[in-house]
């Protein structure tokens, strides 16, 4: 592995971790804060001012930003499987923080997701297309 591809791989893993953690924690707070129903169109807006929902939305904005950064160099077909490790974190958090039971079916699902993540992250490079030529104004130097 050349130093350039090693650099890209470490950067990709670090950014993927941020994408996953911000998504999982953001969705967690969002679900904690959501009321049972949204009766009127206005309720979709006012619900955003509940503290738990606000925190969840801020974390999801971090998720959006880190995902955009990741996509500036990594393939979509790479980050889709790799960031799905979030589903595993949600299941494991339920098991170890909330003491939920994990059925055999769910363990099998966790195993399949981890196998898929390992295949893609271990077996393929994050970037298969030529990097875009930095444009004068658009390049983040």
């Amino acid at each position, binding site marked *: 592995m050349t130093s350039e591809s090693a650099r890209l791989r470490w950067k990709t893993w670090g950014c993927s971790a941020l994408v996953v953690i911000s998504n999982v924690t953001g969705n967690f707070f969002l679900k904690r804060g959501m009321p049972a129903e949204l009766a009127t169109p206005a309720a979709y807006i006012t*619900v955003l001012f509940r503290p738990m929902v606000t925190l969840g939305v801020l974390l999801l904005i971090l998720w959006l930003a880190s995902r955009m950064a990741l996509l500036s160099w990594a393939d979509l*077909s790479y980050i889709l499987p790799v960031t799905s490790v979030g589903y595993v974190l949600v299941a494991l958090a339920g098991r170890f923080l909330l003491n939920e039971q994990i059925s055999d079916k769910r363990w099998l699902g966790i195993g399949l997701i981890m196998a898929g993540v390992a295949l893609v992250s271990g077996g393929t490079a994050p970037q298969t297309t030529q990097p875009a030529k930095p444009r004068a104004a658009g390049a983040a130097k």
Partner: protein
Amino acid sequence: MKWVLIGIIVASTTVGEVLQALGMRRNGEIRDFRPGALGRLLAVLSRNWYVVASVVAMAVSFFAYLGLLTVAELSFAVPVTAITYVLETVLAKYVLQERVSWLRWAGASLVICGVALVSL
């Protein structure tokens, strides 16, 4: 109502994430993560129409998902919306021109089966 929302979610998520990938690819790799540089980047991205359209599409997806969660269980919503993995991987190959090797197809397929098993 449920299936209308699912249709909206799947379509807007797929379109939004592919546009996001297109827009960020045009921008090129982000290398400078200092606050000032990120501020300038934000200004550049706000004039990148792929990125702006992707944020709009993902906001539609977000609110439709909130709506879906009020009429459906998570154990239904999560596996159904995993269909976007299939659509986006296909679009990554044909629209984004990524080289999707058999390892990636295999990985994406395992993930889709896994997501269904975990959440059903």
